[in-house]
């Protein structure tokens, strides 16, 4: 099965996608490939529908999240954005990461949910800026080098957001 994730849902291979189309076409494939529809089908048809369901799920999970969508688009260009052996990030970005991490620690120790909410809002803003940048780099300018750096940054921002939410949850319980 060599069909790409975007083609599967009838989408153009772009960073800016219509999430409603993604969602509805995913649900459609899900129901069309549902095992209940293949109770009387032969083994080959059963296998085919199962493979389609698996592919659709994988594709949906990837395209739904901006960072993973960008990583996938770069992979289509032959670029491995998230290499495990490349740990070089811009120094000012890493400094900022450390500052945010320390601010989370301080807020955690002080049970300061307001500060955590403020940090979370900051991450959402950072994420928005990176999303806009990615659409510009990938869709408008095919600047894959800039897109690679923005994708890597977005993964860090997502991770910080997840960790802030975890801390808020811990404090609230």
């Amino acid at each position: 099965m060599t069909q790409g994730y975007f083609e599967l849902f009838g989408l153009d291979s772009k960073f800016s996608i219509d999430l409603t189309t993604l969602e509805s076409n995913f649900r459609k494939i899900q129901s069309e490939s549902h095992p209940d529809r293949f109770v009387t089908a032969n083994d080959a048809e059963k296998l085919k529908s199962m493979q389609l369901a698996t592919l659709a799920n994988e594709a949906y999970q990837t395209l739904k999240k901006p960072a993973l969508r960008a990583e996938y688009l770069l992979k289509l260009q032959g670029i491995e954005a998230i290499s495990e052996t490349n740990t070089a990030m811009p120094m000012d970005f890493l400094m900022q990461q450390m500052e945010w991490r320390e601010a989370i620690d301080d807020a955690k120790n002080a049970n300061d949910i307001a500060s955590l909410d403020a940090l979370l809002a900051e991450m959402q803003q950072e994420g928005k800026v990176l999303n806009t940048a990615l659409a510009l780099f990938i869709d408008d300018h095919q600047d894959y080098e800039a897109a690679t750096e923005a994708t890597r940054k977005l993964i860090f921002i997502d991770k910080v957001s997840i960790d802030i939410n975890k801390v808020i949850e811990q404090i609230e319980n």
Partner: protein
Amino acid sequence: MAYSDKVLDHYENPRNVGTLDKNDPNVGTGMVGAPACGDVMKLMIKVNDSGIIEDAKFKTYGCGSAIASSSLVTEWLKGKTIDEAYAIKNSAIAEELALPPVKIHCSVLAEDAIKAAVADIKAKQLAKETA
């Protein structure tokens, strides 16, 4: 996934957590990040006039393996020359901590942090000589 005893030991009792004075001309700082998981690591080393690492501190925000890898290297670094430090390989860290293949990148992060800290101290020494 189960962590090895050594990872757990470093994770629960991390050695040398903290920072050194980054403005000290004898202190080198290495900062790295792993885009695969969003972990960030800061390693600082203090080198004496004979080029021996006297002290090492780290701050790592990441999984247990990343914390253990940085904690372990701070222990290894003390008493080494900066060139010996630069030669430390991630495979040695991974082996010592019995890291599973999916966590090898944590040891890569620690190796790269050492290299970045050594590069920083060399740049500072060069600036001092040419000043």
